[in-house]
C-alpha cells in the first residue's frame, strides 16, 4: 500500500508538470492551437502498469488540480481522468505493451474516450466545452499528436522503477 501511495504521489507530480508544460511552452508547438495531452499519456502508462486503484486516484487528483487552474468547472477533468484511469487500470497485467504499436493504440483509444466523455458531461451539465463536442478536427489532431508522442514518452517512463508492473490486483 505504501508503494501505491508513493507511486500516486510521483504520478500526480509528473502529471502536474505535464499540465504546466501544456499550458505554457507546448503552446509553441501546437498544431492549429491543439497541444498534446502529456498528462493523459502518463495516466495511461501508470494505470496500465500499476492498476486501477493507482490509476483512478492519480487521475482524480490531477484532474482536480487541472480544474483549479482552468475555467472548467470543478469536477470536470477529475471525472474524465478518474474514469480513464480506472478503465485502463482494469487492463493492467492483461495486455502486453510492446515498445511501439500498443502505446499508439492505447493512446488513440484514450483520447477518443476522453472526447466522448467530455461530450457527455458537457451535454448533461450544459457546459461550453466546445473542443470535442461535435468531434471536430481538433479531436483528431490531438489523437494524432498524442499517438506520435506516446511511444517516446512510454519509453522514457519505462526507465522509472517505480512504475514497474504491479502484481495482479484483487477485486
Amino acid at each position, binding site marked *: 500500500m505504501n508503494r501505491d501511495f508513493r507511486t500516486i504521489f510521483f504520478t500526480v507530480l509528473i502529471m502536474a508538470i505535464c499540465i504546466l508544460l501544456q499550458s505554457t511552452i507546448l503552446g509553441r508547438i501546437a498544431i492549429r492551437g491543439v497541444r498534446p495531452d502529456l498528462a493523459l499519456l502518463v495516466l495511461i502508462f501508470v494505470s496500465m502498469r500499476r492498476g486501477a486503484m493507482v490509476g483512478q*486516484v492519480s487521475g482524480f487528483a490531477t484532474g482536480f488540480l487541472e*480544474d483549479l487552474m482552468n475555467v472548467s468547472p*470543478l469536477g470536470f477533468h477529475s471525472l474524465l481522468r478518474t474514469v480513464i484511469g480506472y478503465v485502463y487500470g482494469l487492463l493492467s497485467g492483461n495486455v502486453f505493451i510492446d515498445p511501439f504499436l500498443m502505446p499508439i493504440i492505447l493512446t488513440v483509444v484514450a483520447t477518443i474516450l476522453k472526447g466522448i466523455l467530455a461530450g457527455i458531461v458537457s451535454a448533461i451539465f450544459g457546459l461550453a466545452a466546445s473542443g470535442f463536442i461535435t468531434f*471536430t478536427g481538433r479531436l483528431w489532431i490531438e489523437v494524432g499528436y498524442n499517438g506520435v508522442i506516446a511511444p517516446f514518452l512510454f519509453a522514457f517512463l519505462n526507465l522509472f522503477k517505480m512504475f514497474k508492473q504491479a502484481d495482479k490486483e484483487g477485486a
Partner: protein
Amino acid sequence: MPGLFEGFFARHRRGATLTVLVLVSLLCLTVANRAVVIKPKEIGLSAAGFFQKGFTGFFNWFGDTAGSIRQLREAREELNAARARLQEMDQVTREILELRRQNESLKDQLDFANILPPERIAAEVIARDTDNLFSTLTINKGSRHGVKKGMPVVAWQGDLEGLVGKVVLVGPGSSEVLPLYDPQCMVSARVDSTRDEGLVQGEGKDRGTLVMNYVKKIAKNKITYGDLVVTSGLGGLYPKGINVGRIRDITAPTYQTSLVLQVQPIIDFDRLEYLFLIGPEPESAVPEAGQQAAPATPGAK
C-alpha cells in the same frame, strides 16, 4: 454491521473508490455550476499562475538569450533607419501639432465635453488552457492590479487595435480571459461603413471565425467583403468603436429575416502575447450649468 460494511469495502476496494471519486467529481460539477461563497478556483488560479509565470519566464529567458545576438545586429540596422525616419517625423510632428490645435479649437466650438480616456491595464499572456477542451488565456494580472471580472480585453497587432475578449475569472495575481472565438463570447457590434447592428458570436477555436447575426436583410447590397466590424457599445460591456474583425462572407438564408455574416477577427490569437484590459469609463468633466455632457461612448457604463 460495521464488520459487514468493512468486509464489503475490502472485497470491492477498487469499485468503492471509483464510486466515491466519481460522486465527488459529480458533486463538484453540480456545485460549480451554481453560485457558491467559497471560491477555490480563485485560489487554484492564483497558485497555478505562480508556476505558469515561472515556466514562461524560464523558457522566455532561454529564447531571449539566443535571440539577443541576432537582435543586436538588427538593432544597428534599425538605428540607422530610425535616424532617417526621425527627420521625417520631425516634419510630421509639426504638422500634427498644428492639426491638434485646430481640432481642439473645433471641439470647443462644438461644445464637446472633455472626456478622459478609460484606464488601461497592460498584461502578458502567460498560459493557455491546459486542455484542448476549453479556450481561455491566462494573463499575469489579477485583482491586486485592479483587474475585475467582465473587463473588456484588447490588443494591438500590426497597426490595428482589436478586441480579444473579456475577463471571466480573476485571481489575486492572474486572471482568465475568454477569447472572442469562444461560442460563449457574444459582442454587440455594427458594420462600420453602413452602421448596421448585429450580434457577433464565436464559432470555436476549430473554425477560428466569428459569425454576425441579426443584421437586417435590407443591408445586403450596402455591405461588402472586407468591411470592418466594430463594437456598438450597446449592452454596456464593451466600449463603442473597438475593431472586431472584417467581413469574409455574406449569406442571406431564405428562412431567416436577417443576414449571416462570417467575420475574420482582427486579432490572430495564436500570436497573442501582450494585451490591454479596459477599465470603466471615468466620470466626464462636469458640464457647464444647464448643459448635458455628450458621452463619447454611449454604450459603456
